[in-house]
């Protein structure tokens, strides 16, 4: 059997959205899925979410083994603990899925995301943009007389605040990667 499939329902780790209509706690969860690299695997995983009305906040996927036989899919989703457990169980039973883990309930984990942020501005605002970038340790990867493209990596909420601060300065375009995540310590999927 695939591991990490304990059937106990976790209590909410954190609940940014507060309560759902039914009064159930909505939690955000990072789910990592290790799959055989076959055509259609991603479609099956995504189709499961759309077909059953589950929410996808972000999704990343790339091969993680030499030879490209396995890929890791990281999905950030939200729902009641029951829904998240259903998502985990539904993913777990897909034929090409080797492992599924809800990192949010598994223990401490690291989740990182990268964003490219284009800011178009002149004068005072340009210096302000650079100052904020420095505070966030974002790198300017493209600069013109009237624009910057900053690269920033970190937790998703850090990226959110960076984007919010850039908004009044001339935020023009954003491209985010979605989350890559691993558990802390020596445990693996």
């Amino acid at each position: 059997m695939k591991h990490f499939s304990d059937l106990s329902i976790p209590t909410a780790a954190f609940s940014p959205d507060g309560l759902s209509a039914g009064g159930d706690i909505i939690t955000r969860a990072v789910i990592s899925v290790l799959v055989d690299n076959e055509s259609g695997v991603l479609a099956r995983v995504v189709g499961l979410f759309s077909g059953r009305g589950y929410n996808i906040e972000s999704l990343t996927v790339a091969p993680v083994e030499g030879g490209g036989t396995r890929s890791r899919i990281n999905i950030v989703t939200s729902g009641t603990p029951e829904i998240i457990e259903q998502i985990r169980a539904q993913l777990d039973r897909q034929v090409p899925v080797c492992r599924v883990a809800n990192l949010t309930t598994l223990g401490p984990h690291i989740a990182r995301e990268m964003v490219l942020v284009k800011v178009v501005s002149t004068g005072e605002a340009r210096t302000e943009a650079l100052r904020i970038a420095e505070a966030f340790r974002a790198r300017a990867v493209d600069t013109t007389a009237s624009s910057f493209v900053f690269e920033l990596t970190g937790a998703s909420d850090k990226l959110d605040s960076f984007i919010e601060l850039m908004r009044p300065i001339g935020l023009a375009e954003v491209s985010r990667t979605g989350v890559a995540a691993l558990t802390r310590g020596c445990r693996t999927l």
Partner: protein
Amino acid sequence: MNATTQTIATQSDASTTLTGAEVLMKVLVDQGVEVVFGYPGGAVLPIYDALFQQDRIRHILVRHEQAAVHAAEAYARSTGRVGVVLVTSGPGATNAVTGLLDALMDSVPVVCLTGQVPVALIGNDAFQEADTTGITRPATKYNYLVKRPEELSRVVNEAFEIARSGRPGPVVVDLPKNITVGPAPYAPPSRTPRASYQPRIEPDRKAVARAVAAMKSAKRPLFYVGGGVINAGKDACADLTRFIHTTGFPCTATLMGLGAFPGSDKQFLGMLGMHGTYEANLATHDCDVLIALGSRFDDRVTGRVDAFSPNSFKIHADIDPSQINKIIRVDVPIVGDAGRIIAMMIEEWDAQTAKTDAKALETWWSRIKAWKALDCLRFTQDQSADAVIKPQQAIKRLYELAVETGRETFVSTEVGQHQMWAAQFFKFESPNHWLTSGGLGTMGYGLPAAVGAQVAHPDALVIDVSGEASALMNIQELGTIAQYRLPVKIFLINNHYMGMVRQWQELLHGSRYSESYSDALPDFVKLAESFHAKGFRATKMSELDDTIRAALAYDGAAVIDICVAEGENCFPMIPSGAAHNEMILGPEQEQQGAEITDEGKMLV
């Protein structure tokens, strides 16, 4: 997987002279396939040619691809083997989709081979191209597009393995024409399991022990058995029957679970759920330990979820972990094969030298007997010769007269009131003899299902209990029945209405029977004759028994048109959105039950 690929690589040198289609035949033979249900077309012509040139596998030509899948489903369910379907690309594949989803919902092992345009043309909107893997993805347990000849043997073998193991289901293998025409290496079935696919068969003993401990102390226990037990096989059903006898507990079953426990057994309360019996539903509501085996708490069973068996300690055994806690929160989840779970329960029962609380059980049975005394399936049939036949009477007599023949009998159904009456009035003593579309509720299932069952059991009595509306959904299969001289009996409950729809319109929409009356029905007797079958008709009570007897005795296919009372409704009934103790009983009983709420209307 690597190991398998290597096997193929070494094999390929020896046997490159076979075409993909010939390799496919060999693999099917390896898998023990004897019958394929299918329909030809350009993309599968090489496969049809290979079929022609061998004599191990028989092909049954259906008249519509949906029917091929239903026939394969019934073949699978009545034999416990994998059903096999072969259809062409594009429209052939899309026609099969309803059948595939039906098989998925009811956990039926089916392998569906679909033709596809050559790999080089995929994505070009070629003639009869369809994104078959895309279209069938949500309707299958898994699907494949074979892009390289070296994958062919492994994929087809793996498809069978996936279809039959764990929670069974349909698997599609899409075969581009260049793969079947060109050379392909043959590889024998490999025992190398796929690392990512390892269904859990063996249950956790601690969970089983906890379940048994709860059963020992139960005062009002109830077994609730679903199709999963039937899927686990005849031995699982036999073990279950023995175990239920040991415990002395009552047992109810879902629509799909009928036959897992003998229908005429004293401990059997009948089906539960929307059209289940009064005693089964009240026992479900009032029990204190509910032992759910291979059942998935479908909304047709639970009624209002928050009022489902509100005070019971719930044990749920299922091979599919995603069914656990999906709808109903349970106290003891057990993941594994139902057969293994039942066997382990018996072991634990003996190990714990369990004894039931005899006194409590006696009180429980006396309550159940009081519910039973209401005789919730009672109906009144005017016995005079000219009286209009009630549909319940027709089905009840069909059952009794089928039993009188002493023949092994398989019953398929379409979907509607007749299906529920068949579930209520037939008693299935053993598994695999009741073939109905439960999860998807597919009208048009029964006639091709009867084809599949009759092909698998040529000497058995196979009856499709049908409504006149459902029958017309796959009526073209009378052609298949004629071609293969299948002595299928189609028992039409002809009420002129889409009866189940009419019943809901009466209940929910002020008896405005919008589009539920079938005008211009065919003359079913003549229709039968035009398909080389025999037509029978009964229009009044005096004709009923003789007609059924004559039709059952007739040595060939028969369409039996039973013209029944048009306005009869199917009771008892839990209005959707209501609880089990809020049943509506028939006009024979004192009316009681819940008002249908707006929320309930949504659940129809």
